[in-house]
C-alpha cells in the first residue's frame, strides 16, 4: 500500500470515528516514530513511553488529524512536542539528583542498557559493531542524529524528512552531511 492510499484509509476511519484507525496509524507511523524518538532520546524505554503518549494524544485530537492538510506533518509535530516535553521533564528530574560522575551527552544513554540498534546480519563482530555505531550516533547532536537515522535506517528522502521536521531541504541536507562527517571522525577512532 502506498503512502497516499494509507493516508486516505486513515482519514476515512478517523471521520467514521472508527477505533480501527489506531491499528492503521500504528502500521503507518509506529516504526518511523520509534526510530525518530530513539534517535532523539537515545533510549529505547523512553522512546516507547513517548510513543504511547503520542498515540494517546493523536486519539484525543483525531478530528484535527482527519482535517489536517498533511498527516505526516501533524503527527511529527505532536511527536516533537511530546519528545521535547519529555526531555524537559527528564532534565528537571536529572538536575535534582545530578550525579557529576556520569558524563552523558544524551539523556538516558548510559543508564539505558537496551540497544536500539541491532546487527543487520549475524557476523563475528556484529554485536560489537552495533554497540560501537550506537555509541557514535549517540555522540552526534540530536538535530543531526535524527536526520541521519531517518535517512539511513528508514530510507526517507531529504524531501520527506524536510516535510516531517518542517525544515528546509538545504538544512536537512547540510545537517546530514555534517552528521556524516562527524560520524566519520568518530568511527575512525573505533576502526570500523
Amino acid at each position, binding site marked *: 500500500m502506498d503512502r497516499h492510499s494509507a493516508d486516505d484509509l486513515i482519514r476515512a476511519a478517523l471521520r467514521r470515528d472508527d477505533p480501527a484507525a*489506531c491499528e492503521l496509524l500504528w502500521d503507518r507511523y509506529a516504526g518511523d516514530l520509534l526510530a525518530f524518538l530513539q534517535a532523539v532520546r537515545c533510549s529505547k524505554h523512553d522512546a516507547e513511553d513517548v510513543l504511547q503518549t503520542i498515540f*494517546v494524544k493523536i486519539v484525543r485530537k483525531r478530528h484535527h488529524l482527519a482535517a489536517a492538510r498533511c498527516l505526516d506533518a501533524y503527527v511529527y509535530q505532536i511527536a516533537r512536542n511530546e519528545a521535547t516535553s519529555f526531555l524537559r521533564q527528564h532534565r528537571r528530574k536529572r538536575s535534582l539528583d545530578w550525579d557529576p560522575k556520569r558524563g552523558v551527552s544524551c539523556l538516558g544513554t548510559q543508564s539505558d542498557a537496551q540497544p536500539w540498534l541491532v546487527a543487520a546480519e549475524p557476523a563475528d563482530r556484529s554485536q560489537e559493531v552495533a554497540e560501537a*555505531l550506537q555509541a557514535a550516533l549517540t555522540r552526534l547532536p540530536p538535530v543531526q542524529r535524527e536526520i541521519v537515522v531517518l535517512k539511513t535506517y528508514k530510507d526517507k528522502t531529504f524531501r520527506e524528512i524536510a516535510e516531517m521536521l518542517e525544515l528546509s531541504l538545504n538544512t536537512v541536507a547540510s545537517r546530514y552531511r555534517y552528521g556524516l562527517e562527524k560520524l566519520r571522525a568518530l568511527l575512525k577512532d573505533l576502526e570500523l
Partner: protein
Amino acid sequence: MKEAEKRYDEIEQCLRKVRLAEPPGELKRRILGAAQETWKQAPAEVPWQIPLRHLGLSAAAAVLIVSSANYFSTASVAPWQADRPVAVRVEAAGFEDMPETPYSPFVRHLIATCGSPARDASALLDYVQSVRKTLDGAEQDDAADGSGPSEHESRLLPVGSKIDSYV
C-alpha cells in the same frame, strides 16, 4: 565533490551494518490498548463545533474588552467633567436669514452656490459697512457740536470707496 560523495557512501555502508530494532509485539498491544481505551473515554470533538467555539470565544473576549474600556474611560473622565458647564449646541445663522442683505437675488444665489468663503467675505463687508456708518454718524455728531476732531479724525475710507472691489 566526488571524494566527499565517496566518503559519505563509505559511512553509509558502515551504518547499514546495523538496523533499528523493530517495535516489539508487546509494545504494540500496550500502546494500541491505551489508545483504544482513550478513544472510548474521550468524546471526539465534532469538527464544525471547533470554529464555532473559537468564534464564540473571540466575540465574548471582544465584548469584554470593549465594555471594560468603555467603563474605565467613563469612570476616569467622570470626576474631571463634574464641575464643567454643559456645552450647548447653537445653530449657526444662515446667510439667507440675515436682514437687509444688500445683494440682488442673483448675487445671493451665486454666494450660496460658491460656498462659505464668499459668504464670509460678504458678511465681513456688511460688518465693515455697518461699523463705518456708525463711525460716520459719530463724526457728524462731533461736527454738529463744532469741535471737529483734528487729531482724532477717522482714518476709515469714505463710503463708496474702493473697498467694494474686495468682494
